[in-house]
């Protein structure tokens, strides 16, 4: 749509600007302020320059958490995206099954995140949980509190349970927007199931799939509540992701300086990814309009 040039539109944006400035810019400036100072308490601050950034970028703890977080996001994307596409392809297209599927699948998305954690914490317990109990009776030594592999597996399965529906819903919305004429043409040409998917469905899903990938990447990159409730970052530090580490440092130990420096680095990574997201998305939009 061609939009008219009108700088008075700023007045319409002003309320958003004021509100978000209050809840984003001021806190962010506080973080910047902390990141360049040191304190011995009593509200006395000393200039520390870039020392905290230097420390953070050379600390093993930060890199370990970053690496774990990237690995986690990678696993999540590798499982949820193909699984989501597969389920969306097999969803009913019409009839009573559609609303039933949509409502039931969307249900995990609306459960408070710590309740999701609690559900899986209980579900996986060997003494009272269905999953833990079943695995134990099958003779599998499963304990997500002590075994790092089991902890990871539990968190990954939990995230698949929690968020695959998002990918399914997005892909499904992309699929139902394909006109029937496309499928009829494919049937006349004798196209195989695979070519229908490869040359009709996948290109039509491109846009929503992109949103799905980036939303899943970013949300898994800042995951906090669910693993915090299930494992508390343990065993040891095996499931301590960036957000968990950050909250531990800032609110647990009150090391505001290093925590602030780490926040800013963390935020910059997210900003970079958001920028890629935004650029790609606006360009895909242009491609569709032409």
């Amino acid at each position, binding site marked *: *749509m061609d*939009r*008219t*040039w*009108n700088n*008075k*539109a*700023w007045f*319409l*944006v002003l*309320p*958003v*600007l004021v509100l*978000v400035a209050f809840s*984003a810019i001021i*806190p*962010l400036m506080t*973080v910047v302020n902390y990141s360049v100072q040191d304190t011995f308490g009593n509200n006395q601050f000393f200039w520390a320059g870039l020392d905290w950034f230097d420390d953070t970028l050379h600390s093993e703890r930060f890199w370990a958490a970053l690496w774990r977080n990237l690995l986690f996001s990678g696993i999540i994307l590798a499982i949820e995206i193909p699984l989501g596409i*597969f389920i969306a392809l*097999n*969803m*009913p297209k019409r009839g009573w099954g559609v609303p039933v*599927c*949509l409502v039931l*699948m*969307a*249900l995990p998305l*609306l*459960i*408070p*995140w*710590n*309740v999701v954690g*609690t*559900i899986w914490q*209980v*579900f996986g317990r060997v003494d009272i949980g*269905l*999953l833990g109990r079943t695995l134990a009776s099958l003779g599998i030594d499963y304990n997500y509190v002590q075994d790092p592999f089991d902890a990871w597996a539990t968190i990954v399965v939990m995230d698949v349970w929690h968020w695959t529906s998002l990918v399914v819903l*997005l892909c499904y919305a992309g699929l139902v*927007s394909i006109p029937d004429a496309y499928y009829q043409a494919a049937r006349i040409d*004798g196209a*195989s*199931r695979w070519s229908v998917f490869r040359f009709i469905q996948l290109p039509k899903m491109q*846009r*929503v799939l992109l*949103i799905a990938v980036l*939303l899943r990447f970013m949300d898994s990159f800042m995951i*906090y*509540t669910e693993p915090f409730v299930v494992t508390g970052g343990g065993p040891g530090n095996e499931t301590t992701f960036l957000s*968990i580490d*950050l*909250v531990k440092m800032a*609110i647990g130990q009150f090391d505001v300086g290093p*925590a602030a420096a780490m926040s800013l680095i*963390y*935020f910059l990574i997210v*900003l970079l990814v958001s*920028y890629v*997201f935004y650029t790609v998305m606006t360009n895909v939009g242009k491609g569709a309009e032409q």
Partner: protein
Amino acid sequence: MSEQDVASGTKAVGRSMTSGKVASLNRTRSTVRLGWLVPTLYILFLMLPLYWLINMSFKTNQEITGAFSLWPRDFTWRNYAVIFSDPSWYSGYINSIIYVVLNTVISLAVALPAAYAFSRYRFLGDKHLFFWLLTNRMAPPAVFALPFFQLYSAFGLIDTHIAVALAHCLFNVPLAVWILEGFMSGVPKEIDETAYIDGYSFPRFFVRIFMPLIASGIGVAAFFCFMFSWVELLLARTLTTTAAKPISAIMTRTVSASGLDWGVLAAAGVLTIIPGALVIYFVRNYIAKGFALGRV
């Protein structure tokens, strides 16, 4: 290549196409049969942990820890009775609902005019502003937990509903702007121009004509604000102590402190799922469009 070769080649292609067609038809039929199974299995996987929670909420603690049973043998309403009779429990639900509703109203009120501006006008710095809004949706709440605490302490807002509502605006306002902008761009601009020619003022046009046109968009945006405010815990927990504490935070405290009253914990969990399940029913056909930020 001789003519014969070409002919036989065409025949071969023709044959492989026919057989391919037959095979694909067979395959379609079999996928239809199996296809029915895939969503069913997936939904089963989704429902199992939920069933276990509901199952636990109707059991006594003795049965939960003592006997392993797939359904409550000793059916009891006691866990729910505990929650509905103890103000420290049910006030958590009231607190959550108050700040979620406040947040939804504030977010929509500021996002509506802004989304209109983004969808209809070009102005100085519009693209940068739009991107900056997006970055706030992507900002990790963990980064903001400590500064928020200090900012709201300075204003004396700690432990009030409005503090949590404002904090959740950080990610809900950008989200609402994005979703609404997507829906608004689907309304032809001629409608605005006709209304102005007919002598409508901007506010009157916006409320009387434009808002009814994008009613479904407003509904979806409201749903998403509700949802993300309802599920968030980190900021809500950091900014409250007692008077405005959300139900999800009360749950975690109970797990760690008063020991393991599994039955009550499960009942509280089940009760947090119900509001989401209710509102999801109303927007079931628009959920995907909302997640795609109004851009399917």
